[in-house]
């Protein structure tokens, strides 16, 4: 058979493509269950890290999460929904693209030995791809108890520091108040150069301006969305 004929060339391309795609689809489907459970466990560990429980063994994370964390799904009116959907099942990147009056807001409430923490999932965009994180607030729903951040594709050594270097880019938020002294919402941010409001800002990452701006946007808007719910809780 002539290897350079059109028939052979097209046939070869078709067969190769079909074989490769069937093979990859087979592998992806076969591994999906494991991948999803890995992803879910990682999310649980991130949430626990935000409330200050770090370096958990994977085996314990599930148990501690189920014992101490109650997940709440708030409807568009920021009233808890009762339809039994698990907050972990909500894909926030799809959710944030929905119209505002259709969005749901998952919230994780951590309770242990009289301590309560409200863990807010926050989502945004970095330089290359999506970034996300968890902001834990103390009982007063104003003081930050912990922050964790993660990303899909930020530059290692620069934007990726939001995850790799929690000492410098997550921990300094601890103890900050999301309101100013008059009680207006200020939120958390990363700022380049001199901080003009050190009570609500941390120093941004040199060389990662766009990631830092994305983090600021994510922390500001992500937390802001939950304020109506906290106001309801406070007034009760």
């Amino acid at each position, binding site marked *: 058979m002539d*290897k*350079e004929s059109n028939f*052979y*060339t097209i046939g*070869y*391309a078709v067969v*190769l*493509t079909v074989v*490769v795609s069937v*093979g*990859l689809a087979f*592998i*992806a489907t076969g*591994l999906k269950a*494991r*991948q999803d459970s*890995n*992803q879910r*466990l*990682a999310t649980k560990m991130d949430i626990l890290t935000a409330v200050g429980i770090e370096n958990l063994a994977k085996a314990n994370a599930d148990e501690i999460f189920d014992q101490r964390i109650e997940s709440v799904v708030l409807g568009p009116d920021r009233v808890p929904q009762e339809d039994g959907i698990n907050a972990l099942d909500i894909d926030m990147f799809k959710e944030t693209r929905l119209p505002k009056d259709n969005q749901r807001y998952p919230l994780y409430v951590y309770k242990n030995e009289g301590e309560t923490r409200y863990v807010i999932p926050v989502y945004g965009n970095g330089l*290359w791809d999506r970034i996300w994180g968890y902001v834990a607030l103390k009982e007063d729903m104003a003081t930050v108890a912990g922050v964790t951040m993660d990303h*899909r*594709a*930020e*530059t*290692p*050594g*620069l934007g*990726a520091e939001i995850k790799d270097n929690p000492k410098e880019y997550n921990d300094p938020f601890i103890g900050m108040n999301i309101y100013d002294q008059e009680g207006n919402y200020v939120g958390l941010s990363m700022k380049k150069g001199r901080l003009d409001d050190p009570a609500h800002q941390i120093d941004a990452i*040199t*060389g990662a301006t766009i990631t830092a701006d994305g983090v600021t946007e994510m922390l500001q808007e992500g937390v802001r969305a939950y304020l109506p719910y906290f106001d309801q809780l406070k007034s009760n």
Partner: protein
Amino acid sequence: MADIAVQKKADLFGKKERRLLIDPLDDNNPITVQVLGICSALAVTSALKPSIVMAIAVVLVAAFANLTISLLRKGVPGRIRMIVQLVVIAALVTIVEQVLKAYQFDLYKQLSVYVGLIITNCIIMGRLEAFAMGNKPWQSFLDGLGNGVGYGVILIAVGFFREFLGKGQILGYQVLGSWYTGNSLMLAPPAAMFLIGIFIWIQRARNPKLVDVS
């Protein structure tokens, strides 16, 4: 019996085979001599750890892509050979990514950025086109291995110097005391260009046959 064993060994690792493995480490290094794969060498070397991870991933993909293409080489139509090569590389990279995601989730999260970059690495496609299309599977596998390692060695060296001079750290551990002020330039991609330039300079000063006389 013993004779056969020796004979077989000589075939697997004859002089030619050893050259395939060793040449790319120095005289025919993909980065410093052929100047291929520079883009990823600049992007991922800001610290030592991602450099090591990327090096391992490229070694594996280069070796197995070479092997696969060499097995397919007699049937590949000439006009679409590059697309076939790309499909093979992309499929291998996707398999690596999926398996890591299922069985080594932590590593997957670290690697995710680089895995995509492997597909665009010109060294791998270069070896497929230049070697695997015309050689037997075993030799092709060794060639892929050698070139992957040749690339990896430079990557790790660059990563080491950038992290050491940029932050005073090695693999995230502070090795220089607090007196050392990190050199931010070393963390930016151009630093890799300087370092690779210096490596090329050293290599050519040592080995005059590499110097381009034209």
